[in-house]
C-alpha cells in the first residue's frame, strides 16, 4: 500500500528533476556559440539515426547491405561513438573537434577515391582511350560530381576549422596530446620489426604442412621436384636440391664475372679516375641499380641468349641457362658491390697512403698493399651483400635460366658444359608455381621461402656487423 502512495510523488519528483535538468542543460547550451550547438545537434542526430538504422536492419524492416547481428553491433558502436563526440562538443573538448575533422577528411577521401576510379574507368578502361573531347567531358562530370558530393563535408570541415577558438585546451590536455603523439610514433617505428615477425610467422606457419607431411629430410636432400599429383601425395616428390644447386651455380657464376668488374670499377672510381669522370660513372651506376629486373631479363632473352647460342660447344642448345643467368646477375649485382667497395676504399685514411708514398711505393703498390688490405672488411661486406642480392633475385632469372627442374649435369663428362645447362633457382621456383599451388605443394614453396629468408637474414646481419666494425676504426 505504501508503494501506491509513494509512486505519484516519485513520478512527480522525477518529472520536476528532469525539467530542471533540461532547463539547466538548455541554459548552458544556449550560452554556447551557434557553431558548437550545431555540431552537438549533428552528432546526436547521427548517433540516433545510426542506432535506429542498425535496429531496423537487424529486424530486417529495411533493406541494408549489412544485416544480422553485425548491423546491430555496427549501429550501436556508431551510436556510442557519436554520443561520445556530442558529449565532447558539449564540454568543448578539443579532441571532439579533432576526431570530427578526421572523420570528415576520411569521408572526403573516400569520395575522392570513388570518383577517381569511376572517372578513370570511364576514360581508360575501354579498348581505346577516349578522344580528348570526351576526356574533357568526363573530366567536367568528374569535377562536378566531386564538388556536389564533397560540398557538405567540406563546409562542415571549414566551420570546424574556423571554430578553433571556441574550444578549450588545458595544459594537461596539451601534454596528454603530446604523449599520445609520441606513443603513436613509437608504434609506427615498431611497424618494421612487426612486419619482419609477421613475415617469419606466416611463412613458417604455412610451411608447417610441408615439414609434417613431406619431412625436412626429403625437402632438403630429395633430388626430384615433381609436384605433379596434388590429389594423391604419394606420387608427388618435393626435393629442393635441384633448385638449391641452381641457385648456387648461378650465384657463383655471377660472383666470378661480377667481382672483377665491380672491384676494378670501384678502385678506378675511388683512386684513379678524375673527378668529372667519377661523377658520370656514379650517375650511370645509380641508373644501373634502378633499372627494373624484368628489363635485364628481357635483355638476357633477346640479346645474350642468341649470342650464347653461337658459341660452338657441347650441350649448348638454347642459349638459356646458367651462363646467361650468371651474366645477367653479374650486371645486376654490380652497383651494390661497386658502391660499397668504393665507399670502403674511400674510408681508408689519407695518412696511410701518404706513408706508403713516402716509403717510395708507386700508386699501384699503395693500392695493392696498403689501401685494399685496409679496406678489407668493407670489401668482404660488399661481396656478401652482392651474394645476398644474387640469391634473392627472381624475375630476371626466371626469364633467362630456362627453368628446368632437373639438376644441371655436364654433357659427355665435360665439366665446362654445365654452364650451358638449364636450371631453376629457389626464388624462381616460388614465383613460377605459387599462383596455382595447393596443399603440400604450396606448403613446400613456403618452406623454400622460410629457408631463403633465414639464410639471407643471417648473411645480411653478418655483412652489417662487418660494416659496422669498419666504421668504428
Amino acid at each position, binding site marked *: 500500500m505504501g508503494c501506491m502512495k509513494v509512486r505519484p510523488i516519485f513520478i512527480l519528483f522525477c518529472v520536476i528533476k528532469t525539467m530542471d535538468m533540461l532547463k539547466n542543460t538548455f541554459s548552458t547550451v544556449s550560452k554556447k556559440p551557434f557553431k558548437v550547438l550545431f555540431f552537438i545537434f549533428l552528432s546526436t542526430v547521427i548517433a540516433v539515426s545510426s542506432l535506429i538504422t542498425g535496429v531496423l536492419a537487424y529486424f530486417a524492416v529495411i533493406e541494408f547491405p549489412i544485416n544480422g547481428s553485425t548491423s546491430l553491433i555496427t549501429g550501436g558502436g556508431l551510436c556510442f561513438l557519436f554520443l561520445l563526440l556530442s558529449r565532447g562538443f558539449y564540454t568543448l573538448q578539443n579532441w571532439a573537434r579533432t576526431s570530427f575533422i578526421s572523420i570528415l577528411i576520411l569521408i572526403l577521401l573516400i569520395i575522392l577515391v570513388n570518383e577517381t576510379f569511376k572517372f578513370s574507368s570511364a576514360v581508360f578502361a575501354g*579498348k581505346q582511350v577516349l578522344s580528348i573531347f570526351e576526356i574533357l567531358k568526363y573530366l567536367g562530370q568528374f569535377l562536378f560530381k566531386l564538388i556536389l558530393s564533397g560540398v557538405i563535408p567540406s563546409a562542415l570541415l571549414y566551420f570546424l576549422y574556423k571554430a578553433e577558438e571556441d574550444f578549450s585546451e588545458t595544459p594537461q590536455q596539451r601534454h596528454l596530446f603530446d604523449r599520445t603523439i609520441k606513443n603513436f610514433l613509437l608504434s609506427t*617505428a615498431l611497424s*618494421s620489426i612487426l612486419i619482419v615477425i*609477421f613475415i617469419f610467422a606466416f611463412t613458417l606457419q604455412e610451411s608447417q604442412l610441408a615439414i609434417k607431411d613431406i619431412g625436412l629430410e626429403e625437402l632438403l636432400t630429395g633430388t626430384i621436384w615433381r609436384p605433379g599429383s596434388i590429389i594423391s601425395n604419394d606420387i608427388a616428390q618435393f626435393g629442393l636440391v635441384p633448385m638449391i644447386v641452381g641457385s648456387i651455380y648461378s650465384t657463383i657464376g655471377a660472383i666470378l664475372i661480377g667481382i672483377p668488374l665491380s672491384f*676494378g*670499377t670501384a678502385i678506378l672510381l675511388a683512386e684513379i*679516375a678524375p673527378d668529372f669522370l667519377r661523377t658520370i660513372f656514379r650517375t650511370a651506376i645509380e641508373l644501373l641499380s634502378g*633499372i627494373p629486373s*624484368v628489363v635485364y631479363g628481357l635483355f638476357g632473352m633477346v640479346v645474350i641468349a642468341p649470342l650464347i647460342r653461337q658459341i660452338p660447344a657441347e650441350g649448348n642448345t638454347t642459349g638459356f641457362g646458367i651462363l646467361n643467368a650468371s651474366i645477367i646477375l653479374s650486371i645486376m649485382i*654490380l652497383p651494390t658491390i661497386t658502391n660499397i667497395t668504393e665507399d670502403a676504399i674511400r674510408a681508408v685514411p689519407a695518412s696511410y697512403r701518404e706513408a706508403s708514398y713516402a716509403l717510395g711505393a708507386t700508386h699501384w703498390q699503395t693500392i695493392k698493399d696498403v689501401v685494399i688490405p685496409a679496406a678489407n672488411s668493407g670489401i668482404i661486406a660488399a661481396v656478401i651483400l652482392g651474394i645476398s642480392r644474387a640469391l634473392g633475385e627472381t624475375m630476371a632469372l626466371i626469364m633467362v635460366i630456362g627453368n628446368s627442374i632437373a639438376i644441371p649435369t655436364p654433357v659427355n663428362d665435360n665439366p665446362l658444359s654445365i654452364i650451358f645447362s638449364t636450371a631453376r633457382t629457389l626464388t624462381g621456383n616460388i614465383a613460377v608455381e605459387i599462383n596455382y599451388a595447393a596443399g603440400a605443394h604450396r606448403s613446400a614453396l613456403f618452406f623454400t621461402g622460410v629457408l631463403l629468408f633465414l639464410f639471407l637474414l643471417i648473411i645480411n646481419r653478418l655483412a652489417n656487423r662487418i660494416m659496422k666494425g669498419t666504421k668504428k676504426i
Partner: protein
Amino acid sequence: MNHTLTNQEKMMLAREKAARKPNLKRRKISQSIAFTLMWLMGFISIGALIWIVGYVLARGFPTINMEFLTTRPAGGFEGEGGISTTIVTTLYLVVLTIAIAAPLGIGAAIYFVEYANEAQNRSKFVRWLVRTARTGVEILAGVPSIIFGLFGFAVFVSFLKFKFSLLSAGLSGACMVLPVIIRTTEEALLAVPDSLREGSLGLGATKWQTITGVVLPAAIPGIVTGIVLSVGRIISETAIFWVTLGGSYRLPQNLLSSGRTLALHVYMLATETRAFDKALGTAAILIIIIMLLNLAINLSSKYFQKRLSGK
C-alpha cells in the same frame, strides 16, 4: 734430394733475389698494366649499361606511338594491343603504396630522430624497443622481394581474402619500400640544424608543434627524395606484384580488383607471348621513367643541400 744449402748457394740466392727486386721502371710497368685493367673493367661496366639502355631504347622506340600508349592490351599469344591500362594501374599502385608506406615511414623516422634519444634515457624497456625497431628496419631492407610477395600472398591474398588485388599488392609493396622511406627521411631530419628546433622550443612551442611547424617543412625536399626513390622501386618491382596483383590486363575498377603494372606487362609479354618488340617498347618506357625519376632525385637533393646551407 733434400740437402742443406751451402753458404755460397745461400749468397747466390740472396743476390738473385736482390736482382729480382722490382726497380722503378718495372714497378711503373706493372702499375700501368694494372691501371689499364682497371680502366678496362670500368669501361666494361659502363659499356654494359650503355649497351642495355641503348639497345632497349633503340629497339623499343619504333614501337612507341600514340596508338601503343592509348590501346588496351588484348592478351592472347600474339600480345596484341598497347599498354594504356597498365600505365593507369601502375599509377594507382604507386599512389596506393605511397599512401600506405609514407605515413608509417615518416612517423617512424620522426620517432627515431626526434624522440628516441630522449626516451631511451628514461627506461630500459624503451631502449630495448628502439634498438629492436632499428634492427627491424635493417632486416627489412635486406629481405628479397619474392619473400615480400610470399608474405603478401599468405596474409593479404589468402588469409585476409583480399584476393589478387590492388589492395594486396599495395600493402605488400608498402612493406618493401618502408625501409627506404625511413632511411631517407631520417637522413633528411638529421640534416635539419638543431638551432631551428631550439628556436621554436624557445618560443614556447611544444615538441609536436616544433616538428610539424619547423622540422618537417625544412626536411621536405629530403623526404620527397625518399618518396621518389620508393616510387622507382615500386615501378620496377615485379616479383611482389606477380604473386599479389594477379595480372589481369583490364583496368582495376576498385581497390579489390586485379591488374597489371608496366613491369609485370613486360614480364608477361616476354614469357607468354611472342611480342618481343612490344615488350621492348614497354621496357623502353620503364627505362625513361626511371631516368626521369633519377634526374628528379639528383635535382631535389642538390636543392636540399643548397637550402640547408642557407644560400
